């Protein structure tokens, strides 16, 4: 249980966040409670997508540039099943995960059987995501270019809530579950084999690791988790189109957050998502204050700069930076890269 204690502390702290909301709003950091919750929910959805990426990309070393393919599949399954087939939202969600996982397995089978690695794997995943985006934009079942609108029907049964606090807890539940799953994975045979595949495939094979199988399992799980993030996005915003669901933005966010936070660590995706989205919002606010109006793209410029700076100066991400001072490591709050 010791290995999980630190994670449980983090989860408890997050669950207690609503208590701090009046303070944050009082301090003028947020315009109101809803601004805070909307930002937190967005951070949690991105975290979940990034947690998915981190399994194949962080632990397994298979850098996907196309996790939008899975996010979008989850988002569309969640939306289309409800609007066209009258499926309940709670039933749609596991199906979204399942289909996302299947898409991951299919792309993984093709790419890994063809022995694509590194840049080639990145490119082929990117291309798959683009194909999905174009198809979703042109086929009637997804609503085509007009997108799909999920009718507003507040109710627990519809997974739509009057209070954004409730949705915050829903999203947190998924993130927390994946945090714990991630820790369990690190301490499992699969996790050890996955890191071995990342570090040296030949050495892993010599030790009896079926590298193809390990990579396939990883991309399937990775895709399923990112698909859940997509499904949650649909439930939160009740509207998606091809450029949201299968757009390059989510592929970028899903890979940026773990890299910035700490690639191949349990908490890296969350830390990275907070840093990215937090800094992005701060930059937007600052620019707004200076120019008196919003300037598009500012937050993304910050993302790009942050990515380059992290790679240049902190290849192990923000967590690795903290680890240098041994602050968090001493309290055992953040696991080390790939280990534990």
């Amino acid at each position: 249980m010791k290995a999980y204690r630190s994670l449980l502390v983090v989860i408890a702290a997050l669950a207690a966040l609503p208590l701090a909301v009046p303070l944050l709003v009082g301090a003028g950091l947020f315009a109101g409670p809803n601004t805070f919750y909307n930002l937190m929910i967005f951070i949690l959805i991105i975290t979940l997508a990034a947690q998915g990426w981190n399994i194949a990309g962080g632990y397994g070393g298979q850098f996907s540039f196309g996790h939008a393919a899975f996010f979008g599949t989850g988002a569309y399954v969640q939306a289309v099943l409800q609007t066209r087939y009258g499926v309940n939202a709670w039933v749609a969600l596991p199906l979204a995960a399942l289909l996302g996982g299947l898409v991951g397995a299919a792309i993984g089978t093709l790419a890994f059987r063809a022995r694509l690695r590194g840049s080639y794997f990145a490119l082929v995943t990117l291309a798959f995501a683009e194909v999905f985006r174009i198809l979703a934009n042109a086929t009637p079942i997804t609503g085509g270019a007009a997108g799909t609108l999920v009718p507003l029907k507040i109710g627990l049964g519809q997974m739509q809530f009057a209070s954004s606090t409730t949705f915050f807890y829903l999203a947190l539940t998924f993130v927390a579950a994946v945090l714990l799953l991630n820790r369990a994975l690190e301490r499992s045979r699969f996790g050890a084999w996955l890191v071995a595949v990342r570090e040296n495939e030949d050495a892993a094979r010599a030790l009896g690791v079926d590298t193809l199988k390990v990579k396939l399992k990883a991309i399937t799980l990775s895709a399923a988790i990112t698909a859940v993030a997509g499904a949650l996005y649909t439930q939160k915003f009740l509207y998606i189109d091809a450029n949201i669901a299968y757009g390059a933005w989510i592929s970028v966010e899903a890979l940026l957050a773990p890299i910035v936070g700490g690639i191949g660590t349990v908490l890296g995706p969350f830390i990275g998502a907070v840093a990215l989205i937090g800094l992005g919002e701060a930059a937007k606010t600052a620019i707004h204050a200076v120019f008196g109006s919003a300037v598009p793209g500012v937050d993304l410029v910050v993302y790009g700069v942050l990515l380059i700076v992290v790679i240049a100066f902190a290849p192990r991400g923000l967590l690795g930076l903290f680890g240098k001072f041994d602050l968090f490591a001493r309290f055992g709050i953040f696991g080390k890269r790939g280990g534990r």
Partner: protein
Amino acid sequence: MLDVRSVTKRFGGLVAVSDVSLTVPEGSITGLIGPNGAGKTTLFTLISGFQVPTAGEVLFRGEDITGRAPERLAVMGIARTFQIVQPFAGLSVAENIAVGAYLRHAGRAEAMARAEAVAAMVGLADLDRPASSLTVAGRKRLELARALATEPQLLLLDEVLAGLNPSEIRDIIPVIRAIRDAGVTILMIEHVMQAVMSLCEHVHVLANGRLIAAGTPAEVVGNPAVVEAYLGHGAAGRLQKGAANG
């Protein structure tokens, strides 16, 4: 235990391994020596399934394993080490060994226990530190430990002593002997002749992809063909003359 029958490997026009046959008896330590570029490591990659021979076959306990994938061979009980040792950088020493141990122990507790036992056997201590912090000698022991943790019946060692100083070599020789005494058959590529002389019962000599001699270490070392392969054409004659004169 291992039978290599007329194995040949061509890369384009280059014949890296040509019609090599050899046998490794159960319970033995068998050596594979030869000058650089003789095709020793290529032969290893053929036996261990990383490459498929152009012709010939490899038998393990009488079963044809030619071209079978390395991970399946590991399950059957064949493990190998690599000449260039690369620990899994993100993992601790114990976790590195556990990657091998997981092959036969699915649970973490059993795999880690097995890893500790194997570490003790090869003389690795301080198992919680990152594997990347190990010295060269430590990495060699880790390479050995990872392979051993898969509980092999046949262990293929590719120059485990290369890069070690004489005192480190002296320390590791008893470890290899202990592995054999624990029931593991060993086929080793080695350049350090002192180790070959003291460890191997039987030695095969490869030069230019061909098997040029086989026998006990003493027989092989005295073989003029072997001396010439190492030192160049006519060397054996010169050495003999030198010995007669001196």
